[in-house]
């Protein structure tokens, strides 16, 4: 089983490398993948996971409860040369407790993370391990 898993892991890393670096490999190369390739693959997967987690953390810090890559949108709007009306609209957004946020407080399982990202991570990692 271990030998088989080892082969599957190596093969997965080869496929990953092929996709990532667009390299062409013969079947002979596939068979002779060494531990170094496995390590590179693992590091690559780890880096993707860490980057994803960092991105999720960044998104979670949005004060309005909205999942956006620009949590300081309101501040930026204020900083620019905006009208009073635009500034007030931005402020009202800052002070709004969105339904998403209320749902998060009501039940942590309704958090988008649990609705989307976690199942995605579980499925992708399962495929990764057994693929």
């Amino acid at each position, binding site marked *: 089983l271990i030998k088989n898993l080892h082969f599957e892991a190596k093969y997965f890393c080869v496929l990953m490398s092929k996709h990532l670096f667009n390299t062409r490999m013969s079947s002979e190369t596939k068979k002779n993948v060494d531990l170094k390739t496995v390590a590179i693959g693992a590091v690559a997967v780890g880096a993707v996971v860490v980057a994803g987690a960092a991105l999720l953390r960044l998104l979670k810090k949005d004060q309005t*409860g909205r999942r956006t890559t620009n949590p300081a949108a309101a501040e930026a709007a204020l900083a620019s040369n905006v*009208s*009073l*009306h635009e500034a*007030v609209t931005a*402020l009202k957004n800052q*002070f709004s407790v969105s339904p998403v946020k*209320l749902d998060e407080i009501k039940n942590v399982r309704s958090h988008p993370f649990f609705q989307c990202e976690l199942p995605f991570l579980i499925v992708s990692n399962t495929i990764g391990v057994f693929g």
Partner: protein
Amino acid sequence: LAEMAAGLEKDGLALKMIPTFVTRLPQGHETVTIYALDIGGSNLRVIRDRLSGNGKIVQEKVVKKTIPDAIQKSDASQLFDFVADAIAEAMIGDDTKDKSLGFTFSFPVSQTALASGTLIKWTKGFTAAGVENNDVVALLDKALKRKGVDVTVAALANDTTGTMMAGAYQSPGSDCCIGLILGTGSNACYVEKIENVKKWKGDPTASGLMAINIEWGNFDSEKRQVLPLTEFDKMLDKQSPNYGSQIYEKLMSGMYLGEIVRLVIKQLQSRNLLLSGTASSQSLDRPYAFDTAFLSQIVADNTPDLQETLSLLRNIGVVNSTLAERQALKEIATAVGVRAAQLAAVGIAAVVTKMGKGATGCSVAVDGSVYEHFPGFRVNMQATMAKILGNDKVKMVLTKDGSGNGAAVIAAVH
């Protein structure tokens, strides 16, 4: 919910979850004349309450005194002799025997029994010697004996528990099991099963229940993972004397709502977007210059040109303002008020869920100027709770003067 559960297990966490030694709720049919002493700060009140048995509390006599500065800074004997004199004055004309008194003492107290508690530290300008680290009920008892005042101090309470007990007495059958203060500060209490209070070292209570003072204003202060803080909230927290604590309270209590809006105005002023005249700028420079009562008035202003807001601004030194500026101010004040109501509702929904009453409902006794006077606060709070819980079975009941009447109810039922 996690912070509440943690606070019930051990001390020293964000939510203190303090057992209050109140173990019974009134039925509403108790009939007795009883006294309440309320020391909230420099003002004290002694109330002779008549619990008339039909859920009604009649204040037969009220004695109000301002504790002179010299007494506040004297010693335990002088301070409590002054209090005993006020109690004696309230008892004039009452010939009943076995008089009891409930004592609401709004200072940090470590309660050790229903009628016993040690003052941890003086606040609000008091410095009377010999009170800190001493049992305030014992000190009051001694003063009453010195003055020959025949009354037993039966209970020491805080305003939140008092409000819940007064609400439970005044609304019999409504399952009033939560007390909420939304005034200058904010706090809540509820009735918990004693087996859930893991840190409780005493015997199980006869009722199997214990009222828990959540001290909920400190929620999320340590982890900062839940509450949606704006840059203004963070600024207010940083400039406050208790930086880093009571963050939940800072989002919704009367002490801070006006200051949040002042900080917003100052930022808009700095960008020349709002009230940017020279005279206007200076009058709002002082921290806490913008009272929460002003917000209520601005939100309630429905005159065509917001004339009431105009005169209010002039009263605080903002001489010139355009209609557009006043409209903007009203929108900002409304947003801050709505958020406060929503966040207060979230807290109550959590407590209701903790008690397992989300589906069946219960009633919440509420006291405090923000809940009572801020326009739309009650409606927004009720609507948000209905949204979270999926029904409108949790009812809010305004319970005025809970800190006074509630201590009397606690003394009556224990």
